[in-house]
């Protein structure tokens, strides 16, 4: 359900970008999806197929997903570590004064359009 909502946002933004660039057909939309963004890439592409095929601009277009790694920062020992593996606890100094730096993003990276 969450993914469908996000697909509607993507479609809105891609339509806008297409309008601004005089594009009438989109072949693919490339997304950066953070590892801990709570978006499930398979659901997202399923929802995409369903919703994109209802739009002339996007019919048949592919949603390509790059999964970007989650990285946390420790405020006590000033080092980065992989969030998914260690969670909230710094693997270097066991501190819990840590926060997520990257890996939460749901971002449209680029669109691929016919070159004519």
């Amino acid at each position, binding site marked *: *359900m*969450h993914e*469908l*909502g*996000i697909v509607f*946002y*993507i479609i*809105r*933004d*891609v339509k806008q*970008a297409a309008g601004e*660039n005089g*594009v009438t057909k989109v*072949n693919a939309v490339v997304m950066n999806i953070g590892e801990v963004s*709570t978006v499930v890439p398979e659901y997202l592409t399923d929802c995409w197929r369903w919703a994109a095929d209802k739009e002339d601009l996007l019919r048949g277009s592919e949603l390509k997903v790059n999964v970007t790694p989650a990285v946390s920062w420790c405020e006590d020992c000033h080092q980065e570590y992989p969030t998914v593996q260690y969670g*909230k606890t710094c693997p270097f100094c066991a501190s*819990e004064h840590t926060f997520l730096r990257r890996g939460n*993003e*749901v*971002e*449209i*990276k*680029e*669109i*691929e*359009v*016919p*070159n004519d």
Partner: protein
Amino acid sequence: MDPIKVIEIKKSVFADNDQDAALLRKELKGKGVYLLNLMSSPGSGKTTTLIKTIGLLKDSLRIAVMEADIDSDVDAVKIREATGIRSIQLHTGGMCHLDAEMTRQGLDNVDMENLDLVILENVGNLVCPAEFDTGAVCNAMILSVPEGDDKPLKYPLMFSVCDMVVINKMDVLPYFDFDLDKCKKYIRLRNPKAQVIPVCAKTGEGVDVFAAWLLEQVKSWKQQ
């Protein structure tokens, strides 16, 4: 010539919503209407807690409720019948959350001119509503005892966006291995600013503490 041309976009899909939400917050400030976004899992006691809270506050504040559900209007009717205040139903059209635009549409239907407080009962869900800023002045959530004390670990985003966590269904504590101190510790890991209030919405125990907190929030925000 390459048959494909790439156009860089580099834009968060939440960017527009964040902008809409910030704008809405500014407007609410101008009108002096405090918007509370209340979130929780399905059935943790949002409607029951609201009914008790409104009963305590309706002589001090002019309140309206917006109920967000995927379908049905049972909660809006329940609130109206139990408290007599204005309550409207928002349908999310199959969506698992409300965004700022949907919240604004709801607010347009409650007549903001004569209100101090609007409470939004968001869709029951611990994941999606946390991602979407509704434009609310404050996010609060309810966690009920049967759900377990480990929820702050499993749904970190929800707990990090809420400054108030109500722990409901304290009456059933003897039947579950829910550890309140542990739960508080997990909540503070996610959000050191978060306040925690244990209540039993069924009997109303502790709801007065929550109501007093809310009244103080609304008053001090209006004076800012």
